[in-house]
């Protein structure tokens, strides 16, 4: 039959490629890090002259050269001072960041805690010699050498800033005001059809945190270190939540628009989104840190193991966490700065550092920063019966399907 030819051709091509590729594919033999020993990647001992450019992977809003607003520009002064031209690649999710860094074509990345360990274990990033980053000295001690930015006491990056995943609600619709995450995990919620949740496997940690505080019998000690049973309990909670969910959000403008329109009444948020909704002025909202605490993120500048421009990458890391620039980024993006002196450089909002709890360590004690779940439990217990990120991804797909 005439019409079948393309199919036959496709089959033939596929067969050819299969046989050809079989003989050609030499397995590089990646090993599963069952225990977590990062591949040996040398740490830089000294810096030389800049290479003239640096390739950066970052969250939107972290590397501004005037592309969004002419007055928001901290890249041009950097290039003037160091001679390093900045080439930016914006990533939308942690998974995308991991994928981009795996190409080996970028020098530095602003990774969140749910990406950092994967990059370290994959040998995609190198340990950072903090002596070569003078501004590291004034970074809050509470952010240094944390489980998501170091392995065995070796730092793998420079802290950039942090934020919490708060509970936001429409004050006109949600009464009485919620004080607990129970408001979003109640299967008989009176706000059915108006809930929202973050669309990412890492949101399982939010459910785990709630269970950790409300169901001690499960024995959860850390929302990122879950045994198979504990993960199942969190999955059940999230499956029960799903019928009440209006839509999940991952793009923050979607959450902003949906709160504005009245589709969303309550759910997890970032401070920056709540402020955007407040600025829109269509609905009245509030964002609270519930009694259980919350999950959060602490971003880290890391340097690629295959960096073509390591000197410029170190210059960039030192520049972006310097007090004045860290203050600019934090204020523009809406997060707590990592540099302890940054608060002295905030320009527009005199209450900024208080609003974002920049130096209120007791407030952060209830915030569990995103971390990558690994078989070796990330709660520091030394056990290795925890579920890993791949299992979380499968679980999340199961919840959403």
């Amino acid at each position, binding site marked *: 039959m005439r019409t079948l030819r393309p199919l036959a051709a*496709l089959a033939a091509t*596929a067969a050819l490629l299969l046989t050809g590729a079989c003989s050609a594919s030499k397995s*590089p033999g990646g*090993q599963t890090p069952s225990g977590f020993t990062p591949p040996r990647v040398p740490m830089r001992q000294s810096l030389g002259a800049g290479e003239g450019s640096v390739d950066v992977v970052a969250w939107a809003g972290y590397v501004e050269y005037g592309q969004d607003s002419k007055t928001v520009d901290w890249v041009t002064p950097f290039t003037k001072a160091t001679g390093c031209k900045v080439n930016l690649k914006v990533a939308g999710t942690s998974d995308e960041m991991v994928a981009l860094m795996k190409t080996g074509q970028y020098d530095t990345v602003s990774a969140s805690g749910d990406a950092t360990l994967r990059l370290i274990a*994959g*040998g995609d990033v190198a340990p950072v010699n903090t002596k070569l980053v003078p501004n590291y000295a004034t970074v809050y001690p509470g952010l240094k050498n944390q489980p998501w930015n170091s392995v065995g006491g070796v730092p793998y990056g420079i802290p950039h800033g942090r934020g919490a995943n708060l509970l936001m609600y429409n004050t006109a619709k949600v009464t009485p005001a919620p004080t607990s995450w129970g408001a979003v995990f109640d299967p008989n919620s009176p706000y059915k059809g108006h809930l929202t949740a973050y669309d990412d496997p890492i949101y399982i940690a939010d459910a785990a945190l709630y269970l950790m505080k409300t169901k001690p019998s499960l024995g959860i000690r850390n929302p990122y270190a879950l045994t198979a049973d504990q993960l199942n309990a969190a999955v059940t909670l999230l499956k029960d939540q799903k019928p009440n969910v209006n839509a999940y959000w991952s793009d923050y403008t979607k959450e902003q628009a949906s709160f504005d*329109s009245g589709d969303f009444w309550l759910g997890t948020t970032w401070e920056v989104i709540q402020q955007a909704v407040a600025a829109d002025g269509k609905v009245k909202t509030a964002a609270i840190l519930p009694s259980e605490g919350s999950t959060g993120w602490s971003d880290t500048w890391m340097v690629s193991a295959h960096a073509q421009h390591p000197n410029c990458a170190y210059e960039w890391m030192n520049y972006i966490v310097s007090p004045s620039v860290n203050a600019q980024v934090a204020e523009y993006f809406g997060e707590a700065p990592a540099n302890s002196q940054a608060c002295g450089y905030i320009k527009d909002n005199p209450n900024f550092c208080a609003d974002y709890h920049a130096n209120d360590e007791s407030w952060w004690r209830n915030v569990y920063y995103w971390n990558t779940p*690994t078989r070796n439990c990330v709660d520091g217990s030394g056990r290795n019966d925890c579920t890993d*990120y791949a299992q979380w991804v499968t679980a999340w797909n199961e919840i959403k399907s």
Partner: protein
Amino acid sequence: MHRSPVRRLAGALHRRPGLRLTALLSAPMAWLVLAYLGSLGVLLLSAFWTTNDFTSQVEYVWNTDNFANILSDPVYRTVALRTLGIAVGVTVVDGALALPMAFYMARVARPRSRRLLLVAVTAPLWAGYLVKAYAWWVMLSHGGVLDWAVGTPGFGVPAVVITLSYLWLPYMVLPLYAAFAQLPDSVLDASADLGARPWRTFRSVVLPLVKPALIAGSIFTFSLSLGDYLTVQIVGGTTQMLGNVIASDVTLNLPMAAAVSCVPVLLIVGYLLAVRRTGAWENL
């Protein structure tokens, strides 16, 4: 006498038709085979690899685990069936809307309004896909136009079917319009002369003649719906389609994404094989 190379080449091409054809077709064929079928082949091939669970590094170890997973894991079955249902739903809705529209445009409307109607049908194609999807998001959302007029179904499968039906409607109307326009008047007259009432004429004369166009349109609406993943993200609420599963796997587990993307390919190939005998392919 000395002959220029160009003339010699022209002579050679003139004497050998085979050479002529090869020179003409080799570039487009190379593109078709290498870029088009080749990428499909690589896709199929990578579905047989695996990844490191933790670092997401692709490991070139030949195995069929991904396909076994798709068959055994109920998650994939649920999503595949839902996607199929949505694609069929969109096709049915578009068919039901496009048949009377195309008939009116081709047989009833005056030439002037026919032209206006054609412009009206194709006009949405000028606007961006995202603009249209977000427009539906606004209409379907709480306090939107639909909510105010008849009540919104909320975000979910019905919203996805409505939005996709809107997006792909022109692809159904245009082939049907062409088929109706080509319908000879004499056939309709003969049917009437033989005593058939309009409904009988439609069923026994018109429908069989436009069936190939209907199927051609349905190939567009069906396959476009099957592969869509943005509309469902915008108006689907918590709904997931195959495209979303593929998208969520692409960065972390490329081989699995490749294996999942074989599912819509198989569904479409199955659909094409099923409609092959109707002769609809000549209408594409």
